[in-house]
């Protein structure tokens, strides 16, 4: 019996690395290519050299819609300094995504995660979720959820990374 239990523990330990884990700070941001709401294909790796804030959102998520205009302001303020925001709609439908983005008045690329493959890749645990990636493609900050005032933290991280 102890041998059998030991074998199960060993098997579980071997399986642990194979289980997916949420993207963490210092991981290389998983690359993806998604279609934006205006029809162009956008690839994360092509933004190497820029600081990128990837914001995962859904149209049914209130805090997501609340956060969007603030992200637009950050994008407008720093895009000349090598920064961009990429919005990723996790529902996978371009129509509702375009409508919400248009109402929020965003100008940054809004991508549609058809099939939820990128959401699975990043193993999101909450909505909205924001991941800040540095110029070398490494994750430097992960923020789960949104409440008023959180944008101050985004600004702090983005300013620090742009300055490097």
């Amino acid at each position, binding site marked *: 019996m102890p041998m059998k239990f030991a074998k199960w523990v060993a098997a579980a330990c071997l399986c642990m690395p194979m289980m997916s884990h949420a993207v963490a700070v210092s991981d290389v941001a998983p690359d993806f*290519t998604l*279609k934006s709401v205006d029809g162009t*294909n956008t*690839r994360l790796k092509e933004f190497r050299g820029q600081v990128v804030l990837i914001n995962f959102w859904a149209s049914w998520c209130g805090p997501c819609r609340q956060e969007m205009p603030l992200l637009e302001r950050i994008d407008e303020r720093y895009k000349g300094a090598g920064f961009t925001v990429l919005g990723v709609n996790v529902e996978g439908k371009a129509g509702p995504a375009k409508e919400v983005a248009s109402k929020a008045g965003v100008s940054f690329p809004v991508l549609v995660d058809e099939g939820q493959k990128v959401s699975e890749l990043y193993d999101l645990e909450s909505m909205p979720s924001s991941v800040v990636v540095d110029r070398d493609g490494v994750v430097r900050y992960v923020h789960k959820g949104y409440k008023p005032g959180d944008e101050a933290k985004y600004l702090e991280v983005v300013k620090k990374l742009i300055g490097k």
Partner: protein
Amino acid sequence: MQRIAFLFGALLLMSVAAFGDDAKDALADDNVAADAPVSADTASDAGVPESDAPAKADSASLGSQMEDIKHGLLDLKRDLAVLEEDLLYPASSQVAVFLSMDVGEFFALDSVTLKLNGKDVTHYLYTQKQADALFRGGVQRLFVGNVKQGQNQLTAFFTGRGPEGRDYKRATTVTFEKSFEPSYVELKISDSTAKYQPEFVATVSP
């Protein structure tokens, strides 16, 4: 996969250990040289402080050793990649699909979907940069996988913008016989000036 990772880790540790031993020897020699009595005349004749010359020689030697280790690691990485491919996709079942383009006016590629024996195996979106790279002669390895020996069917769906900017979707199907050797399928998109349309051709080798 885990064995290969373990082997790579073991070889890396051995290389670092070997480098560490060499570095220790080099440092030990440096210490010996520093401890040796220095003649004032020699130092003044050389015009360079005695401690700098051996230090510079050692750093050059360390630099070249580092380069050698880096080259060794790159070679090892390449060999491991080849071994991994042989392990995951043995020749008897391997099929690889490559995409190339020779278009200008008639087709702007947006995406390619591959179906192998009726099952979706890949869906790839192309950015403008990637499409430009293909147009300039790049060849993309779109898919590599395993199939059973015998008759197999591959269908490729190309989506993009055709002549006059209209949405364009075309498919091409190829049936091939899988033998013991790896099978390579080339998908080529080219302009047909006779028809003023893009052409999508699939060829199999061997």
